C-alpha cells in the first residue's frame, strides 16, 4: 500500500496532497494540465523534495520531513514512465531495458519483453522508434528495475490519437498480468475509465476527491472536474453472453442487463462501462415501439440546479447512472428526487472506447 501526504510551496502555486493507494491497484491521478499531477509523482519518485509530509510504501518510509528521511530516487524502487519516454539515445533498446535491471537483477527479462512485444525492437536505436514503441520500451525498462510502485505520467500524451490505439492494448495487458501498484497520471477520462480502478481527482494542487472510478464518476458535484462533455456514470458489469444473431454483448450489473453493440468476450469477465450522460434519456413510462434496447426503471436521486439549458439527473437503476436532459424536459416531466423514471440507453452509444477494466477481477 502506498500512502502519500505531502506539501510543497511554489512561488505561484502550492501542492497539498493526501491519498492512499491499495497494493496492486491502479489509481489514476486525474485533473487538468497544470493541476499539479506531475509535481506530485515527481515528489513520490524523489525527483523533487516536498517541504513537508510523509511518503510510505508497504510501511517503508521513502520520505518523512519530520524524521529527516529523504531517500534518493535510486533507493526508492519506484519505477517512472515519463511523458516523453526519456530513453537513452546512445544505447540500443536492449541496453535501455537492462539499464535498471543490472543494479537490481533477477527480473524476468523474457517475460516482460514478451508482454510488451519488445523482441523485434531489441537491437534498434530508440531515436528511430515510433512514439508508441518508445513508450513500450520505457514501460519495459521501468518494470525491469523491479519497482514496488510504477508511476506513469501521461504515457500517451505525446502520441497521436491513431497511434494510441496501438499502445492501449499493451496497457490493458499490463494491468491484467502484472501485479503492481500503479499511479497513472492523465487528463483523458476515457483512459482513466479504461485502465484505472481508483480515481484521485487533482485540482489546483489539492486532492478534490478520491475513490473507486464508479463512485467518483457518479457524483454530480464533481462534474466540473471530471469533464463536462464526456461526463457520465461508470457501471461495473460482468460479461454474460453474446447474442450472435444480432451481434450484441450482454453485460450484467445490479440493475439488469446492459446490451452493447459488437462486444464479444469470455463469460464472467469484468467490464467497466462508461455511459455518457448525454447518451441517456429519461421517460416517465416504459416506451413501446422504440428502437432503444436498454430500458431500466429507477428512481431519481438528484437533479442539478444549473442556470444553463441542460441539467444532469442522477438516477438509481440498481446502480447510479447519470442522464443529461434539457432544463425544459426536466421542467415538463417534473423531474425531482424520488420520482420513478425509466432510463433509456442506446446500445450503439456505448463503443469500445467507453469500455474498460477487462481482465481484472475485484479490487
Amino acid at each position, binding site marked *: 500500500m502506498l500512502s502519500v501526504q505531502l506539501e510543497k510551496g511554489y512561488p505561484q502555486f502550492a501542492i497539498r496532497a493526501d491519498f492512499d493507494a491499495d497494493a496492486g491497484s491502479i489509481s489514476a491521478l486525474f485533473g487538468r494540465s497544470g493541476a499539479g499531477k506531475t509535481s506530485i509523482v515527481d515528489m513520490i*519518485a*524523489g525527483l523533487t523534495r516536498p517541504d513537508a509530509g510523509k511518503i510510505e510504501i508497504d510501511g517503508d518510509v521513502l520520505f518523512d520531513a519530520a524524521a529527516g528521511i529523504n531517500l*534518493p530516487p535510486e533507493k526508492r524502487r519506484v519505477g517512472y514512465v515519463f511523458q516523453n519516454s526519456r530513453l537513452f539515445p*546512445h544505447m540500443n533498446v536492449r541496453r535501455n531495458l537492462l539499464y535498471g535491471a543490472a543494479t537490481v537483477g533477477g527480473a524476468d527479462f523474457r517475460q516482460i519483453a514478451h508482454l510488451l512485444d519488445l523482441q523485434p525492437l531489441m537491437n534498434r536505436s530508440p531515436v528511430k522508434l515510433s512514439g508508441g514503441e518508445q513508450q513500450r520500451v520505457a514501460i519495459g525498462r*521501468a518494470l525491469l528495475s523491479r519497482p514496488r510502485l510504477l508511476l506513469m505520467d501521461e504515457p500517451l500524451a505525446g502520441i497521436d490519437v491513431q497511434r494510441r490505439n496501438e499502445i492501449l492494448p499493451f496497457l490493458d495487458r499490463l494491468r491484467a498480468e502484472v501485479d503492481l501498484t500503479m499511479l497513472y497520471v492523465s487528463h483523458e477520462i476515457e483512459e482513466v475509465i479504461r485502465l484505472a480502478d481508483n480515481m484521485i481527482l487533482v485540482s489546483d494542487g489539492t486532492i478534490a476527491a478520491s475513490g473507486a472510478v464508479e463512485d467518483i464518476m457518479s457524483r454530480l458535484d464533481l462534474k466540473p472536474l471530471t469533464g463536462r462533455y464526456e461526463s457520465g456514470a461508470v457501471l461495473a458489469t460482468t460479461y454474460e453472453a453474446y447474442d450472435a444473431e444480432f451481434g450484441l454483448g450482454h453485460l450484467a450489473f445490479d440493475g439488469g442487463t446492459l446490451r452493447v453493440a459488437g462486444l464479444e468476450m469470455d463469460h464472467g469477465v469484468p467490464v467497466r462501462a462508461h455511459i455518457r450522460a448525454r447518451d441517456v434519456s429519461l421517460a416517465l413510462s416504459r416506451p413501446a415501439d422504440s428502437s432503444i434496447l436498454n430500458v431500466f426503471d429507477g428512481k431519481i436521486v438528484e437533479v442539478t440546479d444549473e442556470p444553463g439549458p441542460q441539467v444532469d439527473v442522477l438516477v438509481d437503476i440498481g446502480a447510479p447512472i447519470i442522464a443529461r436532459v434539457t432544463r425544459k424536459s426536466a421542467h415538463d416531466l417534473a423531474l425531482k428526487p424520488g420520482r420513478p423514471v425509466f432510463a433509456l440507453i442506446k446500445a450503439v452509444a456505448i463503443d469500445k472506447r467507453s469500455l474498460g477494466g477487462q481482465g481484472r477481477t475485484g479490487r
Partner: protein
Amino acid sequence: MFELSDIEREAILLSLKVAFWAVAVSLPFGVACAWLLSRKSFPGKSVLNGIVHLPLVLPPVVVGLILLLLFGTTGPIGGFLKTVFGITVIFTWKGAAVAAAIMAFPLMVRAIRLSLDTVDPGLERAARTLGAGPIRTFFTITLPLALPGLVTGIVLAFARSLGEFGATITFVSNIPGETRTLPLAIFSSLQVPDGEAVAIRLAVVSVILAFAALIASELLVRRHEHRPET
C-alpha cells in the same frame, strides 16, 4: 628538407609530452568545473566562472608571473610540492605542462560545458529512477552524451598547449631539452643568424600537428555518432 635535426626532434617530442600531460592532468578538473558550471547553482558560481576564464583574458606573461610566484620553491604551492612530494616544477618540463594546462583550461571547460548543457537533465533523472546513483548516472549517461564536446575540449586544449609561449617562457624559461617546446624553439631559432630555415620547418611541423589533432577529433566524434549499436 624534412630531415629533422636532433634538436628539432627533441623540441617536437617535448612539446607533445608537455601537451599530453597538460591535458591528461587537467581533464578531470576541467570536467568537474564544466559540470559544476552547467548543472549546479551555488554561491560563488560567477567567481568560479571568472577564475576559470581568467587565463583567456590575462596577458600570458602575467599568468606566467603568477605561476612563478605560486610555484616557486618558496611560493605557497611550490614549497608544498617540494617539501611533501619532493617535486620541483619551476624550470622543468612539468612546469611547462602546468603553464600549458592553465592557459588551455578555459577552452577545455567551455567546450565541455556547452556540451553538458545540451544533455537533457530528464535523462539523468530517468537513470536515477532506474536505480543508478549520481556517479553511475554521470559516467553512463551524462558523459557519453557529452562526448563530442569532451573530444572538442581535449583537442582544443591539446592544440592550445602545443602553442603555449608567453606563460611558459616566463614561468619555466627556455631551457633546451627541458622546457624548450616548439614555439620556444621557433622563437630561439629566429634569434640566431640563419635560423630562419629551422624556424620555418618547425612552423610546418606545428601546422601538421594541429591539423592531425583536428582530424583525429573529427574522426572520433563521427565514429561515435555513427556507431552501430549492438
